[in-house]
């Protein structure tokens, strides 16, 4: 019984983190039509930077204040420079989409190797509330619960941002129709850049969370990008609620499979989504 509680709780915790990552990715694709395969590298850079800063004396929660704005600014600048230029010279939407994805592939190589150059292959970690606590018969480390709490805060905050703020509404309008949004006065280019930056910010948030308890290395980017992609396909490309729901499902399934054999988790996820594509290509909540 305690195993089941363990699986569920850890599943929800990881689900929260995956949901964060996936929201960022689906935002970038849903609005900007950019399939950003370098997404996980933003997570990695943030995770490694926060670990380095904390080991140098910074309080873990303060690392959010450094990593998140940095990620947003970097993402914003990347979008406003190379992606805006690409949009200008692309003759149609399909060309832009495939070239944008290829450019993010190049970006992945740049960012991943910057990480490797700075930190090598060793992992980094720090102790922060790492003692365990008993919940419903299962033993959970407190820092994991903190991760879940912060992930939920971010997810809720993001939903509020999308639904209640003006920028959020511009983003939603742009994702439905760029022409209609432009006619209503939305600054499309700036909105796209904000989306891309926000995507990076969400990845960075997940990165800090991972840095708290999961001993990241400079190589965690790729596997997290893969997970984010799987979650996004599962939840429905472009759907934010889908990203959260998908993240939760993948988190739970991942923990369940990991109980049987932890090396097969990725395979299980991949197969699950492959089968889903056969039956319902739009994903769970896709339009």
């Amino acid at each position, binding site marked *: 019984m305690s195993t089941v509680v363990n699986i569920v709780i850890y599943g929800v915790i990881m689900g929260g983190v995956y949901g964060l990552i996936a929201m960022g990715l689906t935002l970038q694709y849903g609005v900007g039509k950019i399939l950003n395969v370098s997404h996980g590298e933003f997570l990695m850079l943030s995770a490694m930077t926060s670990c380095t800063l904390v080991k140098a004396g910074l309080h873990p929660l303060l690392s959010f204040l450094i990593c998140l704005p940095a990620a947003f600014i970097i993402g914003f600048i990347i979008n406003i420079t190379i992606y805006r230029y690409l949009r200008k010279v692309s003759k149609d939407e399909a060309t832009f989409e495939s070239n944008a994805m290829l450019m993010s592939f190049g970006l992945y190589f*740049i960012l991943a190797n910057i990480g490797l150059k700075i930190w090598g292959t060793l992992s980094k970690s720090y102790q922060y509330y790492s003692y365990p606590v008993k919940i419903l018969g299962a033993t959970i480390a407190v820092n994991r619960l903190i991760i879940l709490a912060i992930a939920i805060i971010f997810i809720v905050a993001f939903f509020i941002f999308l639904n209640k703020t003006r920028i959020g509404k511009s983003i939603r309008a742009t994702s439905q129709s760029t022409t209609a949004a432009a006619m209503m006065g939305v600054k499309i280019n700036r909105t796209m850049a904000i989306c891309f930056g926000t995507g990076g910010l969400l990845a960075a948030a997940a990165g800090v969370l991972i840095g708290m308890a999961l001993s990241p290395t400079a190589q965690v980017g790729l596997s997290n990008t893969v997970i984010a992609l799987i979650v996004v396909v599962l939840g429905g490309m472009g759907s934010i609620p889908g990203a959260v729901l998908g993240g939760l499902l993948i988190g739970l399934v991942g923990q369940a499979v990991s109980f049987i054999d932890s090396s097969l988790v990725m395979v299980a996820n991949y197969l699950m989504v492959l089968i889903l*594509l056969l039956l319902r290509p739009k994903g769970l909540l896709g339009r």
Partner: protein
Amino acid sequence: MIYKFNFRKDVQYIVVAAVVIFFAFVPLFGSTYTLTLSSTIMMYIVMSLSWSMFSGPTGYISLASGAFVGLGFYASGFLSSSLPLPMLMLVGGLVSFALAAIIGAVTLRLRGVYFTIFTFCLVELVKAVMTWYEIMIVRKRGLNVRNFGTDTAFYAMLVMVAITLIVVVVIKQSRFGMALTGIGESEDAASHIGIHTTRTKVFGFAISAFLMGTVGAVRATMLHHIDPGSSFNMMFSFLPVLMCVFGGMKTFLGPIIGAAVFAILQYSLITEMPQIYMIIFGAIMILAILFMPTGIVGVYERVINRIKKGKSKKGGTDDANA
């Protein structure tokens, strides 16, 4: 189809064929360094041509090359002590063909972005499976691979280059090649004039995977020891794309030139600056997409056209672009 010899277009085939024949004699006088560098160039030529053979005309961008090359590595890894090199290459090719056919059958009936996503994840997936197998089942990390000699590996690569060149040229002139191009130009129109689009795409993808599997098998024999991390490597997915984008995706010479350029660059830079050269490659990819969408070959053609326009001052007719 009536074949007319057009010097401007067809001289490139003759030149390439001549170079291939020339290379057959290199082992007679070349140093080991030259042989290994040439083997790498040839492997990259096969990879870039196979990649562009499918992704070029159809526009379906595959990022799975690392999975297929890696499967070739492991075909040699598992069987090099019991099979001769040609058989290893065949096994590597067939396994890759099968995997590509399966993945293709599921994802190629959907929008292109799904295909790209699944091919991207495929490299990590196969790596995870192989790692699991090594940790859980055989409890030994990595495999030793028998070395058949530098000369043998060189000739194996050369043969694959020749085969790939022939396959590429034949497909380009064939009905199948026209179907691939039609799918890329307008998939709706293609399906409505009687092209079985899914089957065509799957077959094209699988052939391209086969070729990558064969050179992976050869490459492994040059390395003595392989493991999942170095075999199922994103670099193998990235390089063909980079080489084709840089060289010119939809041309014949583009991927070949791109392969040679980056093989040589990698060889020169890998010892001095292992991570930095990859950063440079990433930057080149971005710059090439933004500023050289038709690749080096496209730039060359534009320059030639401008020179020709300058020469024909009477405003006579231009040759149709090749």
